[in-house]
């Protein structure tokens, strides 16, 4: 299936020298950003009372701060694009899993017919039996059928049904003991326990759509860094979150922000950011980013840090 027809999957960062039409050409390795580490060292050995040093230092600080801001904006844009692509992929996956489930049901029904069992016996329907003998007979048949089916049942090859486990690090106020991670979904807490390896308790949540949605979440304050909450998600939501984007991912991709970054001129980055519906997007971004993560632990960690960056930025402005 040519997915490119549904979704514009270019990152659309409009960054030079990387070609916006070829996100493959985006840096595979760490992006080299000019740092002022040398300058720091330089100023450390200089006389502290030097006024000129101070002003240059402030200039450098301003430059680095501006670069920091640009990086955060770029990261947010990449996250948005990633999110749009991810939700599109999830839609495709759920569609695919629906398609694979249909033949399975058909096969099960065929097996019932083939074995001479009444249709619907295995699908939760109960039959009213006038005598205990009949009931016993059916029960025996049911057991026999289950044994046969368990032998014949094909191995589930649908990788999308496998429980996906992902971990997200979310910054949290150390005074907050609620162990709440706002990720755009609603959760029901069903337990809490203290673990050996961590003084903070671990809270267990189920998706509010349970039992139809199998996703579970564990939240615990990080033992290494108590300012972070570690949220572990098991499974994939089979529904959109309450604050999810409406409509197709295509339309989201069309309304994403355009970032222009000039890495060539002026020795720094010149960024022109055109934002459409910035407020809405940011709001949704913050709420949704944490909820749609891959199994890639590196990504989950980076995304959590991105969220924290966005929150910090918002709190400053």
């Amino acid at each position, binding site marked *: 299936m040519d997915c*490119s027809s549904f979704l514009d999957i270019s990152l659309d960062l409009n960054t030079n020298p990387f070609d916006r039409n070829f996100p493959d050409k985006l840096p595979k390795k760490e992006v080299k950003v000019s740092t002022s580490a040398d300058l720091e060292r330089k100023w450390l050995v200089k006389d502290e009372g030097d006024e000129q040093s101070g002003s240059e230092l402030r200039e450098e600080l301003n430059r680095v701060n501006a670069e920091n801001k640009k990086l955060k904006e770029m990261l947010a844009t990449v996250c948005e694009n990633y999110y749009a692509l991810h939700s599109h992929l999830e839609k495709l996956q759920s569609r695919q899993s629906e398609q694979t489930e249909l033949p399975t049901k058909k096969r099960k029904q065929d097996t019932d017919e083939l074995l001479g069992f009444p249709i619907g016996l295995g699908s939760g329907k109960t039959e009213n039996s006038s005598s205990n003998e009949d009931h016993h007979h059916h029960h025996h048949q049911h057991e026999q059928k289950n044994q046969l089916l368990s032998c014949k049942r094909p191995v589930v090859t649908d990788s999308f049904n496998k429980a996906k486990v992902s971990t997200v690090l979310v910054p949290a106020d150390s005074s907050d003991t609620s162990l709440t991670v706002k990720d755009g979904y609603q959760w029901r807490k069903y337990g809490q326990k203290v673990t050996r390896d961590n003084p903070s308790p671990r809270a267990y949540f189920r998706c509010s759509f349970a039992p139809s949605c199998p996703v579970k979440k564990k939240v615990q304050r990080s033992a290494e860094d108590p300012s972070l909450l570690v949220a572990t998600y098991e499974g994939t939501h089979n529904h959109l979150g309450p604050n999810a984007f409406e409509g197709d991912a295509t339309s989201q991709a069309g309304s994403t922000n355009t970032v222009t970054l000039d890495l060539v001129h002026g020795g720094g980055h010149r960024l022109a950011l055109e934002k459409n519906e910035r407020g809405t997007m940011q709001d949704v971004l913050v709420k949704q980013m944490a909820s749609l993560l891959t199994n890639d632990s*590196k990504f989950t960690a980076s995304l959590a840090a991105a969220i924290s960056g966005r929150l910090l930025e918002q709190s400053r402005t």
Partner: protein
Amino acid sequence: STTSALVDELKRVNAENKKLTEMLTLMCDNYNVLKNQLM
């Protein structure tokens, strides 16, 4: 003391920049992986 405070702040922002750059690189890689999955 002002200079040392500025240097400290510069260090902090530089470290944050470095982290952001790494994250951005990582995100680009992840994006490309996802894109290849879709293609």
